[in-house]
């Protein structure tokens, strides 16, 4: 009888260990980076590859459409905020893209396509990601007046200047490429905004802390904005927040095994009557 009991006890311990192992395995799910486009809800999409992460209409902030991040770090990559194209402060023919128009996003073979309805003519935005850049295209069947805003908290320079102390409006020479810089975690990142057509007007805005907005005015029926960073793939040691999940599961699992093993011998739970 005692041998049978001991065998049963060992079997139960093995089951506990297997259960803990299962939970720990599952806890690594957030660290897996599936490649390509995916979605969470009818209006929320995300793209991820080895370099870029693009969030469209993230649950916590519904106006970032899209918000572009760089994936960097070692051993676990974390998100570096690059730039956000905000519908909240973008306009087509004077209509606010977020407030005045309805947007419907759909995943297609080549990327994400968003159709804005409620305006005439109709406007379509598509987002694709290549090895080098993230491309956001605005298309319409007729020429439209587009005012687009690119945000970052904060840029350290646009076209080589931080525009400190300069008179408003802070105009930038309108051209097809705009260079920008920002600092994150003590490192300086350099990027470029490539436009398919020359814009009508480019302005930058700053608040008391720094440069936070690039405004692009364009008239036409097709505009492609490519955003690329120089020197991606740096390796800097960063503790990703997502590591907390496996750590929590390991801690909880060990606590569970400890309780299962020692509580039986230490504390006798009386039968409830």
């Amino acid at each position: 009888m005692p041998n049978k009991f001991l065998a049963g006890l060992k079997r139960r311990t093995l089951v506990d260990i297997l259960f803990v192992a299962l939970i720990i395995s599952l806890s690594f799910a957030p660290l897996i980076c599936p490649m390509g486009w995916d979605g969470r809800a009818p209006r929320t999409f995300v793209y991820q590859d080895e370099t870029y992460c693009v969030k469209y209409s993230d649950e916590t902030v519904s106006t970032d459409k899209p918000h572009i991040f760089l994936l960097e770090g070692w051993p676990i990559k974390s998100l570096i905020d690059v730039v956000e194209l905000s519908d909240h402060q973008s306009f087509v023919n004077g209509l606010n893209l977020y407030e005045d128009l309805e947007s419907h996003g759909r995943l297609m073979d080549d990327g994400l396509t968003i159709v804005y309805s409620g305006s005439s003519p109709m406007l379509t935005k598509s987002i694709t990601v290549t090895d080098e850049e993230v491309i956001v295209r605005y298309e319409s069947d007729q020429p439209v007046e587009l005012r687009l805003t690119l945000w970052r908290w904060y840029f350290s320079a646009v076209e080589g200047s931080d525009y400190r102390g300069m008179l408003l409006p802070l105009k930038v020479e309108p051209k097809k490429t705009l260079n920008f810089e920002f600092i994150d975690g003590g490192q300086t990142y350099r990027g470029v905004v490539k436009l398919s057509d020359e814009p009508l007007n480019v302005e930058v805005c700053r608040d008391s802390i720094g440069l936070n907005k690039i405004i692009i005015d364009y008239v036409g029926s097709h505009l492609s904005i490519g955003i690329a960073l120089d020197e991606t793939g740096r390796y800097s040691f960063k503790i990703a927040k997502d590591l907390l999940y496996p750590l929590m599961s390991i801690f909880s699992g060990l606590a569970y095994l400890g309780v299962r093993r020692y509580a039986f011998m230490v504390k006798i739970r009386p039968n409830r009557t």
Partner: protein
Amino acid sequence: MNVWDIGTILEASRQFLNGEDVYRQVAERTYMLRQSTGLPLYYHGFAYLPQALLIFAPFYRLYTFIFPAENNLDLRAAELVLPYPQIHVFLLLIKMPIILADVVVIYLLSRREPRLGLFYALNPYVLFITAIWGNFDPLVGLFLLASYLCFHERRILSGFLYGLSLIKIYTIVLLPLFIVRSLSSWREFAKFFLGVSIASLPAICYLFVAPNSFLNAMLFQGARPVNGMNMYHVASIVQGIFFQTAITRVAMLIFASALLFLTYMVLRERLPMLNSMVMLMLAYMTFAPVTNEQHLAALMPLALLSQRFDRKLCIFPLLFTAFNATYIYFATPIFWTDIALRNLYVALHGAWAEAIGPYSSYVRYFISLSFAFLAFGNVHNHFQLQMPALDKRFPAIRTALPTAASGSPSYKTG
């Protein structure tokens, strides 16, 4: 109130009383979602067995009798507008079946042990699910409890009550147990099967009248992406539905394997009926891909009868809601009566979100883990037969644990 779930019952009751197919809208909206987004999304509509409509629709009809005009309630609107006093009357009526179920549960438990009835009556978790949120899992709990209590004496009634409990389809995990325990004789099995069949007549009707939409809605329950207060909660943090779907497939495999194994062990070891039922339901909540906060309420009445159920389990769903549920679920309808009150609640919630926002996903995961481990440990406890002490330092164990005269556990008591 749980705005979405109550809204689901409201919408389905209205459609049912208008003679519409309640499942067709769910199927159509799911199709439209998928077509418009390119994502494998589901519309979370009425996906319960139609017996639920026969329970709730009469109370909705009573509401429309009391308010023949101006009775329109749209709980799915983006900007929620709640007419008063209609919303209070509606909520009272639509929760009435659940409240009555709780009363009967208290009575049934008190008959066996007054302290159990008192515990159930005053349990904050039960009060929260019934009175505040209005989920009908306590109704399922009554049906399961009553089915168990009359299983040996009134087989047809037991089958009927079990059939009613299938309004939340997760009680299907108990079907093999009931079937095998009914096979003591073909007559007893036939009685139980008859009871289940009678309760399932509405579902059988729908299978003939609208099979596609009905099965589509039921399929949703089996294909929902991982979510809730369980060990898969961490997967809901990952980025997208495609990846979650992949994890869900793994979760379904784990779930099916665990349930099959435990059911086999329960039947092979011929564990007591009560222990078996509690254990299989706990196993469902541990391994199922979707475990919502209200699911434990369906187990509580039965589990309280069991000496091995750890009552601390009902703390975790309460904690989970504090970090998971959207604020509207706690604010409505009281804080919607007045603009100032609503603004106050929004401000309070904003302060709460700012305080715990960065940490809420970790806290939710920790609560889910704690629940999973405790529930799994409890499944173990229900499995353990009474056995002699391992260590001679604790001789009290030998005398403290009751055994039957033959030394084997009794089948009929928990």
